[in-house]
């Protein structure tokens, strides 16, 4: 007979532990932490509500929107599970948190694809068997079906793509013609001095500028290529009116005309404004320059953490997040609207919703874009960004 962690306790307590279901999985650190989190949650609620009666608990690290009650509540009820959310505000921050130890508490994570892929070499994500997700992939656009190279680590699938969009100039068509933005040249035009907005979102504004300079940032770069990137960033800062990290600031600037164009964002920025009726705000993708595609396709993906103690539930939740019904909700949130990887969702869109999402433009954007993945020299480029920003003061 094996000795359990509670067998030395009096019989009464042993019965209580068995009744609570703690004997089967053992009192792991994860379970203890989750229990503490749940207790703290109840305490925060003013001690008025009773502890959760759900059979199990999960923690989901995700962008805001993935936690929408219209997505989560049906899953919660169907599986009798309580889901705690760890909302991320930026992908590197979420990755850093997981790396710092949060991976022991989190079961599922939805973030930007390169950061999901990085979970593989970091030893944090569970490798997925595409055959287990055949039902999910059956309704996906072909472009996202396995083997989907950007989500592979040493040939193993790390996550499932969920939502996507494109990065390109965001403009107000009442103030500027979209044809002018067939390249990034207007960013450097003296006539536009003090009218350009740059998103302060890490690598997002750097990568399009590198592409404009004729450099493929997704390849290993030598010193010359990095110097070219430096020059183009320096030129960009000369015309920059503001760097913003907050979507609403950029949206407001585009709407009121104080900003002519916004760099480093794309459909993620424009769609929510379009949903409010401002169809004059669009995200375009410049045309290829010297054979180099100038747009960037961003993809969000979902992965299961290696240390999860709920592997089956995590898999179920992952499948639920990319389902037709969840995909429809996810693509038309109040904060941002973006197309999803599940083709079946398209059937649910009204003409108005298609217009909001620029759905008729999405494959043009795709054709003229690079797929966003890990840029090998991103740290060097971020260091250059910091140096040039300091020099521009």
């Amino acid at each position, binding site marked *: 007979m094996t000795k359990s962690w509670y067998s030395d306790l009096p019989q009464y307590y042993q019965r209580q532990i068995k009744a609570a279901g703690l004997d089967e999985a053992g009192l792991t650190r994860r379970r203890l932490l989750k229990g503490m989190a749940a207790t703290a949650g109840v305490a925060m609620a003013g001690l008025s509500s009773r502890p959760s009666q759900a059979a199990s608990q999960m923690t989901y690290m995700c962008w805001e929107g993935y936690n929408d009650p219209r997505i989560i509540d049906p899953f919660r009820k169907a599986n009798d599970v309580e889901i705690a959310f760890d909302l991320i505000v930026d992908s*590197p921050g979420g990755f850093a948190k997981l790396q710092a130890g949060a991976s022991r508490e989190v079961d599922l994570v939805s973030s930007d694809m390169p950061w999901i892929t990085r979970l593989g070499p*970091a030893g944090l994500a569970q490798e997925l068997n595409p055959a287990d997700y055949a039902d999910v992939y059956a309704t996906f656009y072909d472009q996202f079906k396995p083997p989907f190279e950007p989500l592979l680590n040493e040939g193993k699938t790390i996550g499932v793509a969920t939502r996507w969009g494109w990065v390109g100039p965001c403009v107000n068509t009442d103030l500027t013609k979209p044809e002018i933005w067939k390249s990034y040249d207007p960013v450097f035009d003296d006539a536009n001095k003090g009218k350009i907005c740059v998103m302060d979102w890490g690598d997002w504004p750097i990568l399009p500028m590198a592409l404009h300079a004729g450099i493929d940032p997704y390849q290993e770069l030598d010193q010359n290529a990095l110097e070219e990137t430096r020059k183009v960033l320096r030129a960009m800062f000369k015309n920059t009116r503001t760097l*913003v990290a907050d979507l609403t*600031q950029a949206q407001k600037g585009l709407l009121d005309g*104080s900003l002519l164009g916004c760099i480093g964002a794309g459909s993620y920025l424009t769609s929510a404004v379009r949903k409010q009726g401002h169809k004059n705000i669009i995200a375009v993708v410049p045309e290829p320059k010297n054979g180099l595609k100038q747009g960037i396709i961003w993809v969000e993906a979902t992965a299961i953490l290696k240390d999860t103690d709920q592997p089956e539930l995590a898999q179920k939740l992952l499948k639920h997040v990319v389902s037709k019904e969840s995909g429809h909700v996810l693509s038309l949130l109040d904060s941002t609207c973006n197309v999803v990887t599940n083709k079946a969702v398209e059937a649910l869109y009204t003409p108005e919703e298609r217009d909001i999402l620029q759905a008729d433009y999405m494959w043009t954007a795709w054709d003229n874009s690079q797929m966003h993945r890990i840029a090998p020299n991103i740290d060097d480029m971020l260091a250059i960004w*910091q140096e040039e920003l*300091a020099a521009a003061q």
Partner: protein
Amino acid sequence: MADEVPRSWRDPDLLIKALPTVLLQTTCFLAPLVMTFLLTFQRSRNFQLQWSWDLWTWTDVFSKPHYWTILGHTIFMAAATVAICLIIAFPIAYGLATRFKAWENEIKVLITFAFITDATLKIYGWALFLDKNGMANYALSSIGLPPEMVAFLYTDWATLLGMVYSLSAFAIFTLYLSISNIDRSLILAAYDAGAGKFRAHWEVTLPLCKPGIWAGSVLIFLLSVGAFLEPKVLGGGKSPMSAELIRQTFETRVNWPLGAALTLVLMVVSVFIVLLFSRLIGLKRAGLAA
């Protein structure tokens, strides 16, 4: 006069009384600080921490001038904020302590409300107010002035405005306490000795306010060097200050050793400046006494 009790660190009673504070400081301040320091001797590669135990990060910090440019800009902005806050706060605090006794509590409550209102709300409020199409320009153009007269949003001036607005309450309240504690008979004595209002103010009131000026200055300076919302929202992010540089290094670059080193540099420089000024004021006092 009360007898002074000589205290020694060998006094068991004192040691027991100090123990909770010592434990709290050790676990909550010193230990994280030591860990931060140790982190600076590691490296970050491919967004992952590597335990290398070398001076690579410190070499990077001391060889890249832009870190120091940003630090210099931060110190300048913090010093300017302190100066402006004191200039604005002094008349308010003086008036509060001497002239507006009847409205003293109401004014204090109003200042406190403005002070404790969420910083994000206040800063975005200023952004909307100063915007090209904001309230300030609307009001000015409605009285016949040219459009877009207020055009300093996304400049260092806007950053400074936000920092002064957010932090001036520290100066108002510390100065108010100092002025309230001044013995009025000393000022009357100065008048009796033939001093005019300005001279009495300069030679009696102002020197006696030094503790308040110093306390307010230290609080504002240390909070200013850590400001990140104002440079980002009102300054337009084009003139980053050290706090934003540190955030970017930790979060965007996921370079924790470098972020830790930059944090320590900012802490050391800030404490050095505070100690330097403290010493200078002390020397001046000694000189005056002599």
